[in-house]
C-alpha cells in the first residue's frame, strides 16, 4: 500500500527513536498530548511507548468523537431508533457505546429496533430511497473530517426530493475542544495537567487546514505539530515537539504536508458553512458544555433535521458511576487510574465510551497496552 507501508517502516522508526532519545536527554520531562483518537490508536497499536524514553510521556486527548458524545445523546439516538417505522443508520463505531442502563444501539437492535451500520452517508441515502415507507435517520457523529460527507448527503436528499431522510446531528468542532483543555483548571490553575505540546489532528486538518490551531501557540503558548496517523508520522511529530520545547518555541508546525495545507479544503468548508450553524453550546463528555463547539442543520434544512422531526428525551445524563472517562478525555487521568479498568470495565462490558471505540484511551490501552501495567507491577 503506497503511502501507507513506507510510514510503518521499522528501520526508519529505530532512527527516529534514536533521535528522540538523543534530543530528549535533557533531564526534563516532556508531556505531549496526542489530541486525536487516531493518534491514540497508532501509539498503542504499534507499541510506540516502547520506542520512547521514559521522560517522554504521551497523554491521550479528547479527540475521539465517539468518546466525547455525552450519554444523553446516545439515549436520544436509541429513542429515535425505537420509534415505529424508523431505520437508524450510523457508523459502526458508535453501536456499542452504552447509554443509560448500559443499553447501546446494538442492544436496542437485538431488542427489535432497526439499526444499520453504514460505511458512508451514501449508504444511508440509498436505504432511504429503497424504503420509501420508512423513516431513515442518519445518526451523524464526528469531527470536521466527517462533517462534509453529512452535508453532501443532506444536499443530495434535497435534490432527490427525499422526504423520509433526516440527520440526527452530533458533529463537533476540534478547536473548541482544545480550547476547553487549555482553559481547564487542571492546566490553567492547578497545574495538575502538565502539557508541553500537542500532536494536532491529521484528517481534521485535511479539511480545515492547520491555521485554526494557531491560537494554541499564540494564546496558550504551546507548540502544536499537525501529524499523520501512521506511526512514523507520530514519531516524527514527537521529535518536532521536543525540538520546539528544547528551543523554547511555540508555533504550529505541519508534519502531514502530504495532505494538509494551512487553508485546508475550501470546497468542503464552504459546503459545511452552507449546511450547518454553530450551536451556541454543546455538551462534551469530560469537558462540559463548550461554547461554539457543535453544529446543527440550518433552518433551511429543518425538514432533514431529526431533532425537529422526532421527539427525543434530550436529557443530560451523568456518566456511569465510577467511570473516569471525563478525566481521561481531559488528560488528567490515565486509563489505569480508573478503578474499573480491566476489572468491571472491558471492551465486552464497557462502562464508558472510552472503552468502546478503538480510538478511546481505555480501549486502546486495554486492547494493546495493558501488559505494560503488569510489567510495571512486577518490575
Amino acid at each position: 500500500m503506497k503511502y501507507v507501508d513506507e510510514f510503518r517502516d521499522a528501520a526508519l522508526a529505530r532512527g527516529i527513536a534514536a533521535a528522540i532519545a538523543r534530543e530528549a536527554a535533557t533531564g526534563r520531562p516532556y508531556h505531549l498530548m496526542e489530541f486525536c483518537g487516531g493518534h491514540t490508536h497508532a501509539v498503542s497499536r504499534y507499541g510506540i511507548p516502547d520506542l520512547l524514553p521514559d521522560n517522554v510521556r504521551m497523554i491521550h486527548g479528547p479527540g475521539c468523537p465517539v468518546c466525547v458524545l455525552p450519554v444523553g445523546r446516545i439515549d436520544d439516538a436509541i429513542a429515535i431508533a425505537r420509534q415505529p417505522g424508523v431505520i437508524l443508520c450510523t457508523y459502526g463505531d458508535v453501536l456499542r457505546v452504552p447509554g443509560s442502563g448500559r443499553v447501546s444501539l446494538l442492544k436496542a437492535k437485538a431488542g427489535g429496533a432497526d439499526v444499520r451500520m453504514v460505511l458512508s452517508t451514501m449508504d444511508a441515502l440509498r436505504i432511504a430511497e429503497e424504503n420509501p415507507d420508512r423513516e431513515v435517520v442518519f445518526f451523524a457523529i464526528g469531527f470536521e473530517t466527517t462533517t462534509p460527507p453529512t452535508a453532501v448527503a443532506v444536499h443530495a436528499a434535497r435534490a432527490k426530493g427525499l422526504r423520509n431522510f433526516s440527520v440526527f446531528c452530533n458533529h463537533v468542532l476540534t478547536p473548541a475542544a482544545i480550547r476547553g483543555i487549555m482553559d481547564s483548571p487542571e492546566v490553567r490553575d492547578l497545574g495538575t495537567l502538565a502539557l508541553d505540546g500537542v500532536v494536532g489532528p491529521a484528517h481534521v486538518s485535511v479539511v480545515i487546514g492547520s491555521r485554526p490551531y494557531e491560537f494554541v501557540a499564540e494564546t496558550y503558548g504551546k507548540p502544536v505539530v499537525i501529524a499523520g496517523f501512521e506511526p512514523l508520522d507520530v514519531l516524527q511529530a514527537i521529535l518536532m515537539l521536543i525540538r520546539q520545547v528544547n528551543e523554547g518555541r511555540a508555533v504550529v508546525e505541519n508534519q502531514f504536508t502530504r495532505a494538509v495545507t494551512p487553508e485546508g479544503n475550501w470546497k468542503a468548508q464552504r459546503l459545511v458553512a452552507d449546511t450547518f450553524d454553530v450551536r451556541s453550546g454543546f455538551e462534551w463528555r469530560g469537558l462540559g458544555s463548550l461554547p461554539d463547539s457543535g453544529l446543527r442543520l440550518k433552518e433551511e434544512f429543518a425538514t432533514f433535521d431529526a431533532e425537529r422531526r422526532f421527539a427525543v428525551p434530550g436529557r443530560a445524563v451523568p456518566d456511569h458511576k465510577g467511570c473516569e472517562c471525563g478525566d481521561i478525555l481531559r488528560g488528567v487521568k490515565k486509563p489505569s487510574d480508573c478503578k474499573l479498568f480491566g476489572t468491571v470495565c472491558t471492551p465486552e462490558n464497557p462502562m464508558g465510551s472510552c472503552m468502546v471505540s478503538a480510538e478511546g484511551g481505555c480501549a486502546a490501552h486495554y486492547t494493546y497496552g495493558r501488559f505494560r501495567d503488569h510489567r510495571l507491577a512486577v518490575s
Partner: protein
Amino acid sequence: MTDRRLFTRKLDLARGAVDMSHGSGGKAMAQLVRELFAAAFANPLLDQGNDQAAFDPPAGRMVVTTDGFVVSPLFFPGGDIGSLAVHGTVNDVAMAGAVPLYLTAGFILEEGFPLADLKRLVESMAHAAREAGVSIVTGDTKVVERGKGDGVFITTTGIGVVPPGVAPSGERARPGDAILVSGTMGDHGVAIMSTRENLSFETDIRSDSAALHGLVAGMVAAVPDVHVLRDPTRGGLATTLNEIAHQSGVGMLLREAAIPLKAEVAAACELLGLDPLYVANEGKLIAICAAEDAEPLLAAMRAHPLGAEAAFIGTVVEDSHRFVQMETRFGGKRIVDWLSGEQLPRIC
C-alpha cells in the same frame, strides 16, 4: 486462573438477550458457552473445551443420527425444544436397538432472544440428557440477525452402540410379521396444536416427549431379532408405516380398533378435521417382529412404563403396491396413505 479474570461481568441471564457478538467467535461467545452451555452440560469430554470430543470406541456396531429441531412454540405442554432435541435424537439412536452414549448440540440463536429463555431450555436439555444417561460432549453456537431465525433452532447428533445380534432396520419387515406400537398416538402433535394462536383450544393433553432407549433395551433383551423399530414422529404412524412398507417392499393391514388413542386426542382431531394417525409422536415407537415374537415383545414393552399401553395393531402382508390398509372400526377397509402436504408445520 479463574473465569472471573477472563469475563469481568457475569452474563445477565435474567434480563439479557442474545446479540450478534454472541456468535462472533470472540469473548462474548466464549462467555455464553462457558457460563451457560458448559455449565449446564458439564462432563469430562465437553469440559476439555476443544472443538471436538475424543473417546474410546465402545465394543459393538455404532450408530450415528442427526435431527434438527425447529418446533414452535419453543415451550409447550410436556416439554420444550431443549428436552425434545435430546429425546428426538436419543430415540433415533434407540431405534437402531442401540444404547445412546453421546450427543452433540448445535444452536442457531436469533438476535434478541432472551437469555432467560435460553437458560431455561438449555437446563431442560441438560436435565433430559442426564435422565437419558447421555453426555452432550461437544457443540456449537451461531447467532443470526433478528428476522433471520426464530428464537432457537437446535440440531443434535447422537452416537450409540448396538448390542450384538440386534439389527432392526426399515427394510426388514416381512409378510406375516406383527406390527406393535408402544402407546397412544398423536399426543405430541395435539399438545403443540393446542398452543397455536390460531387453533388454540384447551386440553389436558401433554406432549409424550420421552427418551425410549430404556424401553428399547428391555425389548431387544426379550427379542433381539426385532425386525424394525421406528419412532412415528413427523407424519405420524401413517407416514412412518408407509416408509417402512416402501423400504421393505411389503403391504400392511392394520386394525383401527386396536390402535391406542386418547379420547381427547381423538376429539381434538375431530374438531380440527385431522386424522390422528398423521399426528406426530415424540415418545412412542413402532416395532415389527416375527409373528411368534409378538407375544414376548409385547410383554417386554408393557413391562416398561413407557410401553404400558403397547398394542398389537396389525400385520405385515404381501403387496406389490406396498399399500398400508386398515380395517376401520366401522367395518370397512381403507388405505392409510402417506401424509401429503402438511398437517401442521413445525411440530419438532
